[in-house]
C-alpha cells in the first residue's frame, strides 16, 4: 500500500481510452463498476466533446459480483454493435474487473463470431500498468492485428505517431507539425491514433518513415514496424532550437531533402524569434535565471534543451517516467547538474521548496507547489488541467511552440525592467493582501522591539538584530522570504548564531556571486 496525494501517470484504462477514443468508428466497452464511466467526463469536459464519447460501460454491480459478469458484458457488446455499428469494439478491463479475474478474452472470442465489428481485448494488466506503457502496448497490438504490407506512396511520406485526445497540447502540436512538414515538402500519410480509422492502421506501411512524436509511447510500435516492415523511425520531440533542427534533419535525411535553408530562415536575425531572444528585454528578463524542470520524458528533455539555448541555468531536471531513467539522464547530460526520476509528488514539492529557483517548469502539480512557495511556474507537461485545453493554438513543439513557451516565460517571470525599477526605487507592497511571511514578521518585529533583543522572524528561524531587520525591509517583498532563508542558511553554515546587518550583507555578496 502506498500513500499518494497525486499520481503523475494515469491508469491503463485511461491509456486505452485515449488510444481507442481518439480513433474513428472505434467504440470501447468498459468492463467495470459504474463509477469507472468517468472516462466519459474526461473526454466531454476537457476536450469539450461535441459527440457523446464512444464509451459504454458494462457495469459490475452486486449481481455481477455474485453471478459473474459475462451475461451483462455480452448484452452490452451486442447493444453497442446494434446502436453504433463500429468497425472495432474494444472491451477494456479495469482495475476492478482484473481483480474479479473475469476472462474477457473468452467472451470476446465467442462474441467475435457473431459481430460484424472486430472485437479487441487489450493485452494489459489493468491493475498494474500505467497510462503510457499501456498506450504503447495497445497501439502495437492494434496495428499488429490490422496492418498489412502495402506499396509505398509515390512521394515521400511519414506517419505521425502520438497525437491523441487528452494529451498535453498535442492537437495544437499536430497543427504545428503539419505546417512544419508541409513547409519542407514532406507529406503526412497517417496520424495515429488521432482521427485514425481501421483502414489507416491497415495501410500504415504505405509511408516511408514513422515519426514518434512523444517518447512516452509509440516507440514499441515503431520498433515493430521497423522489424517487420523495414520502416525507419525517429523519436526526437522537436522542442527547442537544436531538437527541432535534429528532428527536421532526421526526416530530411530519409526524404533526401536539405532542410538547412528552412531552419536558417526560421531563426534568421530579422525573424521574430531571433529578435526576441537577442533583445535586451530578454537579457534582463530571462538570461541567467535559475530554473528547474520536471515533467514527462519528452517535455522535460525538450524544455531543458530550450532553456539552455537561451541562457537560462537549469539547476535540475527530472521526469516521472521511471522506466526511462537511463535514457533521460543521457538525454539531458551536460545540460544540467542533476538529472533524476521521481514519481512522488510530495518529495518533488519539497525539492522545489529547498531549491527556491527563479522559475519552475513543471506539470500542473508543480504549479500548485510553486504557488505554495510563491515561485513563478510555467506548465510544460501533463498531468494537464482544463487550462491546458485552450481554444486558441498553443503548440509546444517546433518554432511556434518555442515562441509560445518564450512568451509564457516572459509573462510569468517578472519582466526584467520592472524588476530593476522595483530594486531601484523600492516597491509598494500589495495592499490588503497577506504578504510574504518574512515581510509581516519584519514589520512586527520592528514594531514591537522595544529592547534590542534579537528575535527570530519565523518559527524555528535564527534571531535577527533590529538593524538587520531594517535592511531586510529594504529588499523587495517578493524575494524577501527567500533572502531571509538564504541568509540564515549562510549564517548557520558559518557558525553565526545571530543575524546582524554585517552577516546579511556578507550573505548578499555571497549569493550574488553564485
Amino acid at each position: 500500500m502506498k500513500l499518494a496525494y497525486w499520481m503523475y501517470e494515469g491508469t491503463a484504462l485511461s491509456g486505452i481510452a485515449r488510444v481507442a477514443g481518439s480513433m474513428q468508428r472505434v467504440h470501447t466497452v468498459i468492463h467495470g463498476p459504474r463509477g469507472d464511466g468517468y472516462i466519459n467526463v474526461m473526454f466531454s469536459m476537457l476536450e469539450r466533446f461535441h459527440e457523446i464519447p464512444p464509451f459504454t460501460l458494462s457495469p459490475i454491480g452486486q449481481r455481477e459480483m455474485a453471478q459473474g459478469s459475462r451475461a451483462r458484458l455480452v448484452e452490452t457488446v451486442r447493444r453497442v454493435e446494434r446502436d453504433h455499428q463500429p468497425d472495432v469494439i474494444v472491451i477494456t478491463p479495469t482495475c476492478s474487473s482484473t481483480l474479479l479475474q473475469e476472462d474477457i478474452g473468452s467472451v470476446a472470442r465467442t462474441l467475435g463470431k457473431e459481430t460484424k465489428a472486430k472485437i479487441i481485448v487489450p493485452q494489459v494488466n489493468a491493475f498494474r500498468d500505467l497510462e503510457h506503457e499501456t498506450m504503447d502496448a495497445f497501439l502495437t497490438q492494434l496495428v499488429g492485428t490490422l496492418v498489412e504490407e502495402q506499396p509505398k506512396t509515390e512521394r515521400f511520406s511519414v506517419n505521425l505517431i502520438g497525437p491523441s485526445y487528452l494529451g498535453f497540447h498535442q492537437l495544437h502540436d499536430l497543427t504545428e507539425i503539419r505546417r512544419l512538414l508541409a513547409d519542407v515538402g514532406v507529406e503526412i500519410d497517417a496520424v495515429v491514433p488521432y482521427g485514425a480509422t481501421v483502414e489507416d492502421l491497415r495501410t500504415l506501411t504505405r509511408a516511408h518513415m514513422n515519426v514518434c512524436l512523444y517518447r512516452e509511447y509509440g516507440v514499441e510500435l515503431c520498433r515493430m514496424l521497423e522489424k517487420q516492415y523495414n520502416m525507419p523511425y525517429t523519436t526526437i520531440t522537436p522542442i527547442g532550437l537544436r531538437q527541432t533542427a535534429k528532428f527536421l534533419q532526421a526526416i530530411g535525411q530519409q526524404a533526401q531533402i536539405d532542410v538547412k535553408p528552412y531552419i536558417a530562415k526560421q531563426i534568421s536575425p530579422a525573424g521574430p524569434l531571433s529578435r526576441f531572444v537577442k533583445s535586451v528585454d530578454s537579457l534582463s528578463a530571462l538570461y541567467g535565471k535559475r530554473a528547474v524542470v520536471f515533467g514527462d520524458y519528452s517535455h522535460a528533455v525538450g524544455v531543458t534543451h530550450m532553456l539552455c539555448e537561451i541562457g537560462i541555468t537549469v539547476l535540475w531536471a527530472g521526469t516521472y517516467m521511471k522506466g526511462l531513467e537511463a535514457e533521460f539522464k543521457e538525454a539531458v547530460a551536460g545540460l544540467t547538474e542533476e538529472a533524476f526520476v521521481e514519481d512522488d509528488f510530495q518529495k518533488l514539492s519539497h525539492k522545489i521548496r529547498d531549491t527556491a529557483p527563479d522559475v519552475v517548469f513543471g506539470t500542473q502539480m508543480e504549479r500548485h507547489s510553486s504557488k505554495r512557495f510563491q515561485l513563478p511556474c510555467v506548465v510544460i507537461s501533463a498531468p494537464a488541467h482544463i487550462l491546458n485545453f485552450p481554444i486558441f493554438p498553443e503548440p509546444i513543439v517546433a518554432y511556434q511552440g518555442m515562441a509560445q513557451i518564450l512568451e509564457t516565460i516572459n509573462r510569468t517571470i517578472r519582466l526584467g525592467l520592472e524588476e530593476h525599477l522595483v530594486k531601484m526605487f523600492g516597491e509598494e507592497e500589495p495592499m490588503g493582501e497577506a504578504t510574504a511571511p518574512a515581510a509581516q514578521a519584519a514589520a512586527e518585529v520592528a514594531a514591537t522591539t522595544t529592547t534590542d533583543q534579537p528575535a527570530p522572524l519565523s518559527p524555528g528561524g535564527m534571531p535577527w538584530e533590529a538593524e538587520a531587520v531594517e535592511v531586510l525591509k529594504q529588499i523587495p517583498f517578493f524575494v524577501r522570504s527567500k533572502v531571509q532563508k538564504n541568509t540564515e542558511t549562510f549564517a548557520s553554515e558559518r557558525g553565526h548564531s545571530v543575524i546582524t546587518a554585517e552577516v546579511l550583507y556578507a550573505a548578499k555578496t555571497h549569493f550574488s556571486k553564485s
Partner: protein
Amino acid sequence: METISREGGCLHTFCPIASVAWLHRKFNDSFFLIVGTHTCAHFIQTALDVMVYAHSRFGFAVLEESDLVSANLTGPLDGVIRKVIDEWHPKVIFVMTTCSIDILKVDLQVSCQELSKTHEFPILLASTSGIDRTFTQGEDAVLKALLPFSPQEAPVVPAPAPVPAEAPVVEKKKKWFSLGKSEPETPAPVAAPTAVPAEPKPNLVLLGAIPDITIRQLVWELNRLGIPQVDVFPSADLSTMPPIHEKTVVVPLQPYLNETINAIRRQRGAEVLSTVFPIGPDGTAHFLRDICQRFDLPIDRVYQREAEAWGDLETYVNFLRGKKIMFLGDNLLELSLARFLTACGANVVEVGIPYVHRKDMQAELKLLTDRQIPIVENPDFHKQLQRIEEYQPDLIIAGLGICNPLEARGFTTAWSIEFTFAPIHGFGSAVDLIKMFTKPLFKKQTLAENGWGMEGMAL
C-alpha cells in the same frame, strides 16, 4: 405508485468516493484516506477537477500487488496512516473503501478498530465502494460511521449543587471517543462523583452535512417557530455531536441518507420524521410545518415565510412556468428538485433517478405521483436519449459527462453535481436554487440574441 417505472442502465454517475470533495472540509482536524486502486486516484484527480485542492486533507492508500495476496491489510494500512499522521496530525481519519476492497472481500473494520487503539484517536471506516451506488451516498456512509460519536444520553448533568456553566461540557469531553458496534453497552464514564446521568430528554436533530451558513438559517427558522434547541448531526467537531436516543426526533435534510437513518432507527430507537426535504420554499415550508405539528406548535408563521420566499422568486418562477424539464438521474436529489420545479409551474417531463428509497422518500413521492410526474428509477441512458428527442425538453439536468454533447445537439443543460456543492436548503437559499435552473436558460437566450443561435448565423 404507478408512475414509477424501472429500467436498467443509469451509467453516467460518479461513485461515492467523489463525496470527499465536499466532506473533506466539513470536519475539524480530519483526514480522508481512500483505500483503492490507481483508478480511484485517477478518477478523483481528473474527473472532479480536484486539482484545485492540490494540497488537501485527503489522499489515497493505493493497493499494490503485494496487498492482493495478504490476508490482512492492517500492517500496510498502518504504514500509510503513520505517514498521514506525520504530515497532518489529524484527530480523526476516515478510511473510505472502494470497489476493490469489496471485490477482494477484505475486512477493514477490524483493521480500523485496531489502528484506532494503536494511535489513540478514531480511525473510522466508511464503505464508499462504487458497486451499485451513486456519489452522494458517500456522505451517507461517512455519517453512518460518525453515529457512535453521538452520545446515547443527554450530557451528564451534575445533580446537587449548582456549578459553573461550562462544567458539563468539560466532563463530556473525555467520553466522545468510543468505538465498535457494541457501543450501547459502554457506560458513560462519570467524571464527578456527584453527577448522575440525566433522563434522556426529548430533542430535535437535523441530519445532513450541509453548509454551516445554510444550517444556521434553518435552525433560526425553527427557533422562531418555538423550538429553542435544535441539534445538528454531524457537527464539525466529533466531541460535540448531539445526543441521539429513543426520545430524539431526527429529521433528514438530504434525501440520500438511508443507511444512516436506518442505523439511527435500529441502534438508537429514535423517531425519524418522514417529511419532504427543505429544498425550495414549498419543501422548506412543508418540512417546517411537519416539525411544528410533531411538537404541537402553531404553523401560521410558516405560511407567511413561505409566501415571502415565493415573492422573492417571482420573476424566476414566471420564467420557468411551462418549461419542459427532464432529469437524467445522478445525485439522488432529483425527487425533491422535481417537486420544487413542479411547484414553480414547470413541466417536469421525466424524473430519472438512480434509485428510489420508497420508505424514506414517501412524502416526496406522494407529492410527485399526485401530480402524475413520471419517475424512472435506474433509467436506461439510451432510451433516455430517444425520449429526449421525443420530449424536446427546454432544460436537461444531467451528469457532467454528457452535458457538453447534449448542448452540442442544441439542448440546454445544468450539471447535476452542482446541486450538491451549492446551498439549496431553506428559504434563504431559494433564490440560489432557482437560479441554478434559470441561469442556463438565460445564458442560452443571451447567446441566441447575440448571434450564437443553432444556425450559427451572426448577422
